[in-house]
């Protein structure tokens, strides 16, 4: 149903989704069974005189409530785990030294991805910017630093189960570890104007050595990419 | 029809106290003026807002007769103040962390 999970932490989302769905559906079915049964059993033609006592039904209701509470517990525990993953960002970055960072700037209506170049430092003159084209190495911690040039945008990568807003005037960070090489969609999910629905980009997950080649000379690399794929990415020149 | 709602406190006294507090706060802002000695900036702000709070409470309790009203009406003021507190501490972690400030 939903896009394939390629992230190291996407299982959080998928497992919670399945678990919560199962229990929620159970609660729903139980409730609807109770309701429909009472509609049939206690319609006026069958049950002329209403009585205030409840009887055995209360047990079923306990079951219903128990399931709901279970659901709540699971949801909040998964939230604990997830907030550890999100807030443990800094520790996690400390533990794998070799992360790559990319700056993301949202504008009406395209994404600019700023790469630090080989020296892995921003503000040096080997930085370069690609429009609507995010290239990341596989099995590596990738940190995206998002900001916006005009209005609020939201960077959504369905396969990585990550989504974060790019807010003008502040820098928000998002991170992930992509587990498999490939070519994936990126969309904007925060209404940003009339071209909102056109604000699409591509995520390209490549092998580590290929990522080095890309940083080394991205123009050549783009040429061969564009010759291979139907999707043509265009580069911008160093803007600093 | 002369129906007393409640006892009327000594309003003149309250008024004098309020004027005194106002004078005090003006003196504070003159003596601890942050433009001259920056180190007193937060202290001065604290004193001034504390004085303002005292004045507000005096007015509310005496002039607005909250001392004599039923608990229901006291809640009509306490609830919004609580909500303001919640809102303030809910907004704070975001509002004071932005770039270029």
């Amino acid at each position: 149903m939903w896009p394939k999970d390629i992230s190291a932490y996407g299982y959080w989302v998928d497992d919670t989704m399945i678990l919560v769905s199962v229990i929620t559906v159970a609660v729903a079915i139980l409730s609807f069974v109770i309701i429909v049964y009472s509609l049939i059993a206690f319609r006026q033609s069958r049950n002329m005189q209403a009585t205030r006592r409840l009887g055995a039904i209360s047990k079923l209701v306990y079951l219903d409530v128990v399931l709901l509470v279970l659901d709540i517990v699971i949801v909040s525990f998964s939230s604990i785990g997830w907030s550890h993953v999100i807030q443990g960002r800094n520790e996690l970055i400390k533990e794998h030294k070799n992360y790559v960072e990319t700056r993301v700037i949202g504008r009406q209506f395209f994404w600019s991805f700023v790469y630090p170049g080989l020296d892995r430092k921003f503000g040096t003159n080997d930085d370069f910017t690609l429009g609507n084209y995010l290239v990341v190495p596989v099995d590596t911690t990738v940190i995206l630093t998002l900001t916006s040039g005009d209005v609020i945008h939201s960077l959504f990568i369905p396969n990585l189960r990550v989504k974060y807003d790019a807010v003008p005037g502040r820098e928000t960070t998002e991170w992930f570890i992509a587990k498999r090489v490939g070519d994936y969609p990126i969309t904007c999910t925060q209404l940003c104007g009339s071209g909102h629905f056109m604000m699409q980009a591509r995520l390209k997950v490549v092998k580590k050595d290929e990522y080095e080649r890309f940083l080394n000379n991205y123009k050549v690399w783009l040429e061969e990419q564009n010759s291979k794929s139907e999707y043509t990415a265009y580069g911008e020149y160093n803007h600093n | 029809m002369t129906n007393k709602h409640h006892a009327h406190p000594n309003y003149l006294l309250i008024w004098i106290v309020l004027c005194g507090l106002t004078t005090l706060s003006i003196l504070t802002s003159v003596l601890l003026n942050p433009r001259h000695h920056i180190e007193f900036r937060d202290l001065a702000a604290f004193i001034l807002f504390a004085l303002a709070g005292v004045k507000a409470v005096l007015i509310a309790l005496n002039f607005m007769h909250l001392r004599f009203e039923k608990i229901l009406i006291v809640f009509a003021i306490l609830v919004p103040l609580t909500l303001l507190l919640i809102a303030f501490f809910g907004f704070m972690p975001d509002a004071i962390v932005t770039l270029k400030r």
Partner: protein
Amino acid sequence: MESIITIEDMHTEHQGFIRRYIFSTDHKVIAAQYLITALIWALVAGLLASIFRTQLALSQKSILTPESYNAAVTMHGAIMIFWVAMPLLIGAFANLCIPLMVGAKDMAFPGLNMLSYWVFFLSSIILISSFFVPSGPAPFGWTIYPPLSADARFTAAKPGEILFLFALLLEFASMLMGGINYITTTISLRTRGLGMMRLPIVVWMQLIAALVFLFAVTPLVAGIGFLLLDVIVGTSFFRVTAQSQGDPLLWQHIFWFFGHPEVYVVLLPGLGIIAEVFASHTRKPIFGYKSIVYATIASAVLSFVVWGHHMFVSGMNPSLSYPFAVTTIAISVPFSVILVCLALTLWNGSIRFTSSFLFALGSFAAFIIGGLTGLFLGSQVLDVYLHDTYFVIAHFHYTIFPSVILASFAGIYYWFPKLFGRTMNEFWGKVHFWGTFIGFNVFAFPLFFLGIAGGPRRYYDITHIDYLRHFQWIHILSTTGAVLLIAFQTPFIINFFVSVFRGKQAERNPWKATTLEWLAESPPPHRNWNGMVPVVVNDPYEYSPEGEEEEDFKPQGILIPRDEVLREGTNAPTGKH
């Protein structure tokens, strides 16, 4: 003094047409005015929805441009929340129910009540006028997120936006006037013997909704003031410019500090209507009156500390998001209590399937789905993925639509006698219900799957996105449902107006219900009680009491001539019982 009051009652009857039906201070007339205005707005917003859904389904033909699509989406949301839900539940039903059910002659401040309607009418006029300004109505979503909404560089529709914001302010002002009336009336105009714990559920819900609205909307009024300054004067409270640094997130905080309680403002009165209809149509007392009341209060209190769950991915400080997730999940407990109590009210009842009961039941069933899917969005884990996708759309349509539209229909069929003195046609009512209910589910349920597939909301077209291209059928299916839903409102409209003029005359108590309003004539005269006084002797829902032969219900109150009551002295009923 008594003499003064009675004289006042006598000579209110011979007034001119204008005074009685247009600029009337009678709460029932004002309720009818609110009702009809809100239904017209609902029709407008529904037609808007069917237009842009058609655009979504037939993505090749361009019925709307992307700009007008955004404007249509924005107007649909804003109208449905502020110009349909609020006037229907807070305007119409609170105006109709509260004075009758607490046994008062009218609202505490009838003049303010009339003013409230006419301010609302003015705001409607202003909003309509924003459709006809050159650049069209506001296009930035009903949440009005700056900087898109705050900055002239990004907003094509500046006059439309300014008109929209002013209309919004006026609407809030009118609803606040109403709210002051409802709170004061419920607290201080209760008749003798009617302690707070004997109020009908719907009055409780409307009182709490009015309080929540009062406390939630006022910060937003301040926020809209700032936003208007940004838009008109060009300050930067929420804008980010080279010179000065506003804070876009501050608006989201202020907005959602209002926005989440607002959900309960439009939700609780609907649940109250469901409760009334359930009790009178199952001939049983509401199960767990006290627990429903306390759960409602708890959810109202909690609703002020959950706003952050709308901002999990908005760049909000991550340390805030876990507390908000926990409070959000916690708030589902009182609601599950309320729903379980309502479900148990059906058990061992003797159920009458009138169209108003059908609507209440449909509302109840649909709201269960809405509430349960809320659990998905309450957890940060899933919300990060599902945020701003069609899952959210489906979720809140499953909560708002039942509690506003379906519950209001239930209320209309139920209280129609008290409004117009006639009853509506049952057969067409049932046709209307089945069409509406099926149409709604066909429209809303598929959207859950589009959301799980990661389809972002407010997209003009999804066929050019490769991972969504195969899900176009969902849009087509759901558009079919929406059109069905709109089409099946025609029997209601015809039924409504025919019944107003030539419906069957209704007696005082057509449903054999207990609460006070059924003691009055239908429709009640101008000051409701014809010089009598309703005095409360029973709890609100004394249906099928043990050892009761001739009637299966005990009315909550009895009518006593006023001078008798006043002779007994003036011991006011306290809140405690």
